[in-house]
């Protein structure tokens, strides 16, 4: 599904990712953990194609297509979904209008028929119910005035509606209380399938109690310094990152 080979990237002249190798197969959930400043969010941004990051080496393939050549919207249409750590507030733009536009862009790209307002509403309301979002949500502007929990649930709602091949969740657990965390994790788990993959970026092991990863990778100073199964996350919870960093150094 996703093949990252020796990816190097940075901002201006400052290198942040210093050679990342990662292979994610369909049906898998990978967790990427690491201390602050290790490059986790940069990796998410580079995968989604955010401006301001310079890729200086390596490649990223999504089902054998070169992702790095594509504009952010082309990546999204190819099935890359980034759940933002800080979802952007867009005052004045109605949530329903926004989401239907996005859904239809992606459907168009896949050669599927666009959803009319009725069918869209039907589909979105069902998903909203699952995520415990009230219906007035659709009338509100995108993320504007939303609480932290609402923003994150909105990300998951969008993810559910856009049905991505590769979902990258960037610190989706930050700022959530335990109930909201459970709802968000349920939403993510429900989307798990044999034909898609999930990359979960998190600082804490807590989220991984709910979204159980097949693989855990530790990112430090722009490199993956350790990979393992879910037990690695527990080990990190217990011992912190220091022992790994010492080993790496």
């Amino acid at each position: 599904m996703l093949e990252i080979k020796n990816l190097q990237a940075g901002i201006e002249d400052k290198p942040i990712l210093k050679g990342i190798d990662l292979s994610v197969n369909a049906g898998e959930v990978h967790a990427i953990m690491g201390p602050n400043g290790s490059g986790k969010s940069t990796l998410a941004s580079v995968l989604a194609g955010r401006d301001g990051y310079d890729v200086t080496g390596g490649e990223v393939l999504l089902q054998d297509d070169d992702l790095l050549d594509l504009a952010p919207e082309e990546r999204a249409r190819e099935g890359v979904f980034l759940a933002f750590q800080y979802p952007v507030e867009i005052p004045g733009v109605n949530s329903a209008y926004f989401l239907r536009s996005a859904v239809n862009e992606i459907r168009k790209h896949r050669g599927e028929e666009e959803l009319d307002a009725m069918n869209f509403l039907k589909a979105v309301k069902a998903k909203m119910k699952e995520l415990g979002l009230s219906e007035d949500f659709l009338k509100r502007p995108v993320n504007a005035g939303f609480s932290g929990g609402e923003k994150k649930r909105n990300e998951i709602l969008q993810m559910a509606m856009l049905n991505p091949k590769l979902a990258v969740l960037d610190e989706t657990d930050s700022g959530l209380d335990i109930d909201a965390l459970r709802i968000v994790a349920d939403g993510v788990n429900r989307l798990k399938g044999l034909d898609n993959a999930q990359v979960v970026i998190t600082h804490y092991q807590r989220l991984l109690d709910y979204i159980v990863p097949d693989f855990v990778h530790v990112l430090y100073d722009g490199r993956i310094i350790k990979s393992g199964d879910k037990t690695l996350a527990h080990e990190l919870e217990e011992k912190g990152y220091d022992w790994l960093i010492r080993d790496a150094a």
Partner: protein
Amino acid sequence: MSSATTNETPPAPVEAFAQVEQAGGPLLPLRKAGLARFAERGYPTTSDEDWRFTSLKPLADLPFLPTLEPLGQALGQADIADITFGQHDVDRLVFIDGHFSSDLSIILEQPDGVTITNLSNRLSGLENEIGSLSANDENPFIALNDAFFTDGALIQIPANGSLAKPVHLVFLSTANEASQATHIRNWIEAGANAQGTIIESHLSLGQAVASTNVVTETRVSAGANLEHIKFQDQSLNAIHLASLHSELSNDARYAFHSFALGARLSRNNLRMRLAKPGIECVLNGLYMTRADQLADHHMIVDHAAPHCDSHEYFNGILDDQSRGVFHGRILVQPVAQKTDAKQTNKNLILSDNATANTKPQLEIYADDVKCTHGATIGEMDDDAIFYLRARGLDTKTARRMLMHGFAGEIVDRIQHDGVREELDQLVWNRLEGEHHLD
């Protein structure tokens, strides 16, 4: 500080006053005082701090003649049906060049105590009211209006009463000859706990370089809730000058929305006096200019009592050689502790030749307050564009969506559903049809 050259009173208004004087009436003292004040001050110039970015040269150079008599153009109901908000279920007062048209107006039966009529119909009893809220304003256009206003709306809602339907005030300018000046005066009063929605439209049927000078005084009593939507969509030759003076009392809620789309030069002076505690006042505006238009909003929100909230939101979209001007002053008097005041002005410039001027000001004499203001001029938020692109929208669509949202932010604050929906569509069609969005 008006310069010496403007102190000469243009001859036309003075001569025209003879007719006003002859007509007499209970407001003659107000009219005389207005003429005298105007004679003393003359038109403001750009060396006046309050008019720094808005040159009135076109006005000062032309002998604008008050339209003391109707210009005589016959209009039918069909002309009204086509206008914006023409299809809404409202009570309607129609004025043509400042003169009331009873034929075109429709006022159905109102609850007890509610008055909806033309002002000149009910002047007696209002001698001491008209001009009382605008009296301390030095704006010479108020003086001119005091002297020459022909008519306008009178809306009175008694205590605990409410309007049966929104009232739509329609001001049409039919002037086809240059230099005609219409002076309109409105008096609006909401008693304690009264409620209502007022829509005020200014439209041109003629294309002449004519001016409209409207002064509105609004008294909102304790606990009243008033929404006032002003839609100015005059011809691109018109000059539109407006002055709104609202005095708000305990726990009143007052929302004023200004949509400045038309006129070559438009100026909205908004003067809010928050005289008692517990008030919530919202001023909300959208200006979209193109060609050589200039849209100016100039407001003073005077917090003269504690525990009041005021919020001002003004967005401007400026195209071609046009100019958008925003001046907002929040004045917090020493007694006005616990004030929560917020002011934002955002501008998008679409062309190489457009100009944005913004002066958001805070003047604060009380310490336990929360006051903020923000102003931006510039391009659309890169983060928002990226967010939309990451959801599959291309840059062009993302930009248009944000532009729509930029206008929508203002439109969305209108509480009246029908008006909001119609304006949303209208504003977007306008942007798509007349502005350079890409």
